[in-house]
């Protein structure tokens, strides 16, 4: 059991030990870093490849289709076929594009997505770098991707790209605020910014089982979906409106890099949500890394489920949701966690639910333009009319 749990840790240790028998110390030191880096560099694209397949399969099943099933058994080789296709496709640069920016954008957008993996605790003792500002690092690094999207949308010299870029930035800035604020309660309770320490703080119980944890989790998850530009917040690349948004003018491997960044960040934000609210790698019976991956993939599955179900918001509604709904709720959540922290026993449950529930209700009432109207339809039969509600 212990062996399974620490499988990858032991594997790395074994490798280092073997190296240490023949090679000088400093090579072993460098090798220790290289092994971690290579593991991430292998894991991230592999995750992305199979997430594309998983998404197509899940959405296919939701739509009563089979999904990819031609390349390999159950379409398991489909991502490889896609990869070959992407690599061999012609790379088109628009005539009036800014060639340097057009080239750099897809390169830069992958970097933050990969950097995030450094602080993700995949299992017990399986964090590549245990930074003591892990959460801050995550938020800071993921905000860089906005710049890359800007470069793509501006460098393509296409109006659809430009519109997509402007939408992206508006969305990214707006959703970063409630996202950061929804993390604050966790930091307050765990009294640390390190991802590992936050997981340790959840030994008694996952944060999601508390009122503020649940509210924070929902806010965080919605914002995370928005940060990854996934449905129903996928307005930056809304294919029915602005073709493909910022990556309209990309083809071949550059397009694949945008795709990769999107899916890697899908995994990264799910992993972070698991770390912050769902107890990270903690769980009975199964090895810790398996627990972590299971939880992360469950969240990713919910994202795919969203995609298979929901239409997308409009730009102004998206902004409104962030600023008029999620942000005040996140602020109230910070207050609630303080209340929770200082109140005894049952009282804290009653109190925090008593604050969160009514404030949710009040915010829906205040945002009346987002609440569906009730409509009455007449059914006319020559003279006598009948009405039916909808």
């Amino acid at each position, binding site marked *: 059991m212990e062996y399974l749990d620490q499988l990858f840790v032991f594997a790395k240790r074994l490798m280092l030990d073997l190296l240490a028998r023949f090679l000088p110390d400093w090579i072993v030191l460098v090798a220790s870093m290289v092994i971690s880096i290579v593991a991430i560099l292998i894991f991230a694209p592999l995750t992305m490849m199979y997430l594309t397949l998983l998404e197509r399969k899940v959405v296919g099943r939701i739509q009563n289709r089979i999904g990819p099933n031609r390349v390999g058994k159950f379409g398991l080789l489909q991502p490889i076929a896609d990869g070959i296709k992407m690599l061999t496709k012609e790379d088109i640069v628009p005539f009036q594009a800014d060639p340097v920016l057009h080239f750099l954008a897809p390169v830069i957008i992958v970097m933050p997505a990969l950097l995030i993996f450094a602080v993700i605790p995949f299992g017990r003792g399986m964090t590549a770098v245990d930074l003591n500002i892990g959460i801050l690092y995550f938020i800071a690094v993921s905000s860089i991707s906005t710049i890359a999207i800007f470069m793509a949308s501006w460098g393509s010299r296409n*109006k659809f790209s430009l519109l997509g870029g402007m939408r992206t930035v508006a969305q990214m800035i707006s959703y970063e605020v409630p996202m950061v604020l929804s993390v604050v309660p966790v930091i307050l309770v765990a009294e640390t910014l390190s991802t590992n320490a936050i997981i340790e703080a959840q030994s008694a119980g996952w944060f999601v089982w508390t009122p503020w944890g649940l509210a924070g989790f929902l806010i965080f998850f919605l914002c995370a979906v928005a940060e990854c530009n996934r449905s129903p917040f996928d307005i930056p690349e809304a294919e029915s409106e602005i073709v493909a948004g910022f990556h309209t003018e990309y083809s071949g491997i550059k397009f694949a890099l945008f795709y990769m960044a999107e899916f890697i960040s899908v995994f990264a934000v799910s992993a972070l949500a698991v770390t912050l609210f769902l107890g990270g790698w903690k769980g009975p019976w199964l090895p810790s890394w398996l627990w972590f991956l299971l939880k992360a993939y469950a969240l990713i599955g919910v994202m795919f489920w969203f*995609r*298979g179900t929901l239409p997308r918001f409009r730009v102004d509604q998206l902004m409104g949701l962030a600023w008029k709904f999620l942000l005040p709720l996140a602020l109230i959540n910070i207050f609630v966690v303080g209340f929770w922290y200082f109140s005894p026993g049952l009282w804290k449950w009653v109190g925090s639910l008593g604050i969160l529930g009514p404030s949710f209700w009040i915010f829906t009432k205040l945002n009346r333009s987002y609440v569906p109207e009730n409509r009455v*339809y007449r059914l*006319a039969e020559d003279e006598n009319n009948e009405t039916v509600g909808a």
Partner: protein
Amino acid sequence: MDEKTVTVQDTNPMDTETLEVNFGPQHPSTHGVFRMNIVLDGETIVSVKPVMGYLHRNHEQIAENLTYAAVMPYTDRLDYFNSMANNFGYALAVEKLARIEVPERAQYIRVIMAELTRLVNHVSVIGFLLNDLGAFFTPVLYAFREREKILDIFEAISGSRMMCNYFRFGGVKRDVSDADLEQIRKIVQKFPAFLDEFEALLTKNEILCMRCQNVGVLPPDLAVNASITGPVLRASGVNYDIRKVDRYSIYERFSFRIPLGDKGDVYDRYYVRILEMRESVKILEQALKGIRPGEFIHPKSTSFLKLPRNFKPPVGEAYGRVESPKGELGYYLVSDGTPQPWRYHVRSPSLINLTVLEDLCVGHKVADAIIILGSIDIILGELDR
């Protein structure tokens, strides 16, 4: 795309520049080769110029050089989603022109086919509207799941799924077998359950309501003045349905009601279509109960169907119209006594309903223009003819 920018006359330094974007002719959600020349201020629409004609194929001119019977397959290609309804209108026009009787069974078959077509059209239009709204193909594939069953019936009866070419002057091409009728009964029986599921997925969905309610409001007076017809008109609350107004074919025998909208926005257009499908199901149930064995085509018409060149309607003119799923589909025919129509004109609902596009879009966001277009329900084959 040209890089022209339109400068605003206002010299206020805080004013933003406008951006002219061409949506289409190659764009995922213009429903074909249609172009909208949109001037944007940020994301808000300042003006919309629809540009049509990319799919113009001389339909009327071709028809004026063919025999009356040979036009029938061409009408399939007008609104390629509802070929049965197109056939119906054209058959009505020619029957009026040549004063041909239609036997009862044929009338029943026609009504059944027309209402099945309405189901096909409305269910897919809602699916496509949701696609325009950004749902990732789920509603459209649920819609197509049901549509496939009806298209299977069309294939079994007429020989083709979409280009049915099924109606003939004085009846229909072939009789419907009892097995096919039984199949239709089964579909009609199951359809309300599907509609319930569809509504559970969509009707109360907050995002759909947010996006659709109070967007693209078409006031009733504008709708009447612009001669809008079909569900778009009825969503604005105007009680006008050719099935009730003209009582063509045998529609007066069935009891059904006309759903009318509340505000005339995109949501009403969506929900009126749902209600219309429920009424169509009612008509289908009554028609399937009422259908009796008999002639499926008038015996007199069989002779000129074998020799289309001998079919020479008397000199005169006729206008036949039906309530096609998109609106009033009318055929205007002038005969000079020769085997070819002297004048043939189609009043296509897609084209006329689209004339209010700019009125509906201005002041809304880009995303709204797309769903307004989707809710008007155009088919380029009919729009450009």
